[in-house]
C-alpha cells in the first residue's frame, strides 16, 4: 500500500492527500462500522463487542442508572458515530484527486471517526492479535493509528495554541 504524508495545517485548514487505495480502505471500514451502528437500536450492546465498546455501560455498579442513560443517549450516540463514519466516506469521495481539506470542526469529526474505526478493529480482531501480527489487518490498524496521531498534531498546531 502506497502511503502519503501527514496531515498538515496551512491557510487556516488541515490538508492531506489520500491515495485511491487509502480511500477505498477507509470507505470499506467506515461503511461496515456505520452498518453495525445502525443496528444499535435493535441489538443489545452485549450481543456485539463492537457496540459494547463504542456504546459502553454507563455505570457498571448501577444497572438502573445504566439503563436510564442508555435509553436517553444510545440512539443519539450511535447515530452520531454512524454519521461520522459516513462523513469520512463522503469527504473522501468528494475530495478532488484525494485531496481532503478540513476546518477544525470537520477535523474533530474525522478524529472521532478514525478513533471509532480503530476501536472497532481492535475489538473485532483483538488488540493483542493486532500487536502480534504483521497481517493486513495489523498493517491497516497501524496506519490508522499513525493517521489519527498525525491529525491530533495538526489540530494542536494552531498559531494561538
Amino acid at each position, binding site marked *: 500500500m502506497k502511503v502519503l504524508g501527514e496531515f498538515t495545517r496551512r491557510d487556516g485548514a488541515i490538508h492531506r492527500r489520500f491515495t485511491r487505495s487509502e480511500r477505498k480502505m477507509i470507505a470499506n471500514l467506515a461503511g461496515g462500522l456505520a452498518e453495525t451502528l445502525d443496528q444499535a437500536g435493535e441489538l443489545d450492546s452485549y450481543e456485539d463487542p463492537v457496540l459494547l*465498546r*463504542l*456504546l*459502553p*455501560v*454507563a*455505570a*457498571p*455498579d*448501577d444497572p438502573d*442508572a445504566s439503563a436510564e*442513560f442508555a435509553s*436517553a*443517549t444510545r440512539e*443519539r*450516540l450511535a447515530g*452520531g*458515530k454512524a454519521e461520522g463514519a459516513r462523513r469520512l466516506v463522503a469527504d473522501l469521495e468528494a475530495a478532488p484527486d484525494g485531496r481532503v481539506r478540513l476546518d477544525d470542526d470537520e477535523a*474533530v469529526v474525522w*478524529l*472521532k471517526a478514525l*478513533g*471509532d474505526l*480503530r*476501536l472497532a478493529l*481492535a475489538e473485532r480482531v483483538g*488488540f493483542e492479535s493486532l500487536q502480534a501480527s504483521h497481517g493486513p489487518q495489523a498493517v491497516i490498524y497501524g496506519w490508522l*493509528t499513525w493517521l*489519527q*496521531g498525525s491529525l*491530533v*498534531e495538526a*489540530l*494542536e498546531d494552531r498559531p494561538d495554541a
Partner: protein
Amino acid sequence: MLEEIRLDEDLRLGEPWTLLVWDDPVNLMTYVTFVFTSYFGFPRSKAEHLMLQVHTEGKAAVASGSREEVERHLEAMHGYGLQATMQQAG
C-alpha cells in the same frame, strides 16, 4: 388550620456523581489529552496530568457534579470513544 409538618430525617441532597475515564490500549495519549483540553477546557498541564493518571493508574476522576452534568460529560466522552463510566460518590 395547622397542618402537621413531618420532617423527613432521612432526606438529603443527592451525593454528587463522578465521571471516571479508564485506561484502554487503543486511544492515543495525545488524543486523550486533546479531548481533555478541547472538551473540558482544562489547561494543558492539567489535561496531561489526568491523561498520565489514566495511563499509569488505570483510571482518573475527571469531573464531578450533579447526575445530569455528569451524564452530559459521559455522553460526550463516549462520543469521543473514551472508556468512561459514572459512579455516585459515597
